[in-house]
């Protein structure tokens, strides 16, 4: 059962409706290119073969905003505050139309990123901390948050292997360096600092992402097991 606990104001009124959420909400967090999706790809079939119904969700995939946000990011007029709110709309749409119904139906919800990535990105872009936290205060506290932790020096070879530096993952909307690489290093360094600052406050379970994929997967399974119904 996912408890009805929130970081801030329960703006969706779940408490008022006395919602029962027999599912589990499991979050994988971490920066760009750290290997979150690889881990989720391993976790899902494992859970399913153990008989659990699994739903996964990731950012910018909402029915409402997905397309509009993608289009807005391709232009050159998207300001930082607008970007933050676009992401927030995307998140809440997925929260209300994917995550909540799945939790109500008793699914294991695996989410690739949650509010933490969104807040970290916003804070790096100069958002007021109180403001951004209030907005995401409506989110349910997950049953577990696994944070794939990595340093920039270990992140670089991964990103190179994956095909190089992406515009947004390098924070090029802020141009934090002379070129893509420099901006990537500066952007990811600030982003990681924001993530690290959240570890204690939000109770992240830290997993060292510089280890081999298989050993991370083992640790994740080990920690997910006790969270499952009749686990």
């Amino acid at each position: 059962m996912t408890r009805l606990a929130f970081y801030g104001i329960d703006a969706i009124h779940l408490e008022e409706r006395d919602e029962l959420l027999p599912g589990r909400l499991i979050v994988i967090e971490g920066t760009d290119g750290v290997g979150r999706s690889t881990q989720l790809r391993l976790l899902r079939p494992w859970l399913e073969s153990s008989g659990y119904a699994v739903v996964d969700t990731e950012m910018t995939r909402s029915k409402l905003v997905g397309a509009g946000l993608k289009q807005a990011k391709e232009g050159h007029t998207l300001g930082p505050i607008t970007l933050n709110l676009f992401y927030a709309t995307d998140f809440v749409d997925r929260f209300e139309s994917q995550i909540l119904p799945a939790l109500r139906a008793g699914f294991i919800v695996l989410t690739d990123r949650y509010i933490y990535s969104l807040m970290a990105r916003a804070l790096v872009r100069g958002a007021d901390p109180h403001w951004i936290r209030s907005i995401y205060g409506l989110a349910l506290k997950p049953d577990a948050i696994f944070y794939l932790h990595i340093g920039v020096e270990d992140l670089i070879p991964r990103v190179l292997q994956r095909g190089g530096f992406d515009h947004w993952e390098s924070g090029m909307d802020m141009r934090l360096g002379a070129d893509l690489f420099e901006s990537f290093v500066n952007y990811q360094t600030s982003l990681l600092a924001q993530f690290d600052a959240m570890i204690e406050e939000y109770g992240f379970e830290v997993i060292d992402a510089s280890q081999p994929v298989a050993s991370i997967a083992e640790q994740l399974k080990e920690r997910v097991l006790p969270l499952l119904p009749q686990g």
Partner: protein
Amino acid sequence: METYGLHRYPGRLFIVEGVDGSGKSTQIALLRQWLISEGYAVFFSEWNSSALVKKTTSRGKKKQLLTPTTFSLIHATDFADRTEHDIIPPLKAGAIVLADRYIYTAFARDVARKVDRQWVRELYQLAVKPTVAFYYRVPLEVSLSRILTGRTELKYYESGMDLGLSNDPQESFKMFQERIVNEYEAMVDEFGLTVMDATLPIPEQQRRMRKIIRPYLQGVRRIRSSAQESAWAGLAREMRPSHPDIHVRGK
């Protein structure tokens, strides 16, 4: 990022609020004409008009994808885009910005939709606090008759049909508008809205609006002299025997 009440810009921001049919748009259009004729640089921003966000909003409305919370958020996104592009830069440049509807519209509508009152106020912390916020107060019967006469169709979200108040769009619209009016009335003190009597004749309302605004125009730079002054200057130029503006071509 600066939050509500903390922005310090040389420009001025005047906004109008009120229910549909209160006549606020007429008033701000008249004010705009007057300010332009007085020689000020005037920018105008309308609710729900961001080119970047519009498509998403209309898709959400058309397909009825919006919950009260996402309805609130998508409008806030629209507002953020206008704040970042149409409101803050001109205010920094010392211009006058006029807005037809502002954050109080969101507070009234979203809370009428049962979005948490405090949460939606936090959401709009990004807004610049207006120099003067006018609230055009009108009895509900008057605004309803202004809107409903000649209207055959009310839109789904416009009439608050998403709230399930009534199956009849007209009835739902009335109930929804009543909630909105109650929210506006509660905000008069909370945000220091300047209440205007929207039942007065249009010219009288406009006269009062200009009177309230005039003291705030002190120190605002004009980009050219007022229409009246330039008319006099033009006349004086024409009266002069040798016209300095006429140059001999092909010299």
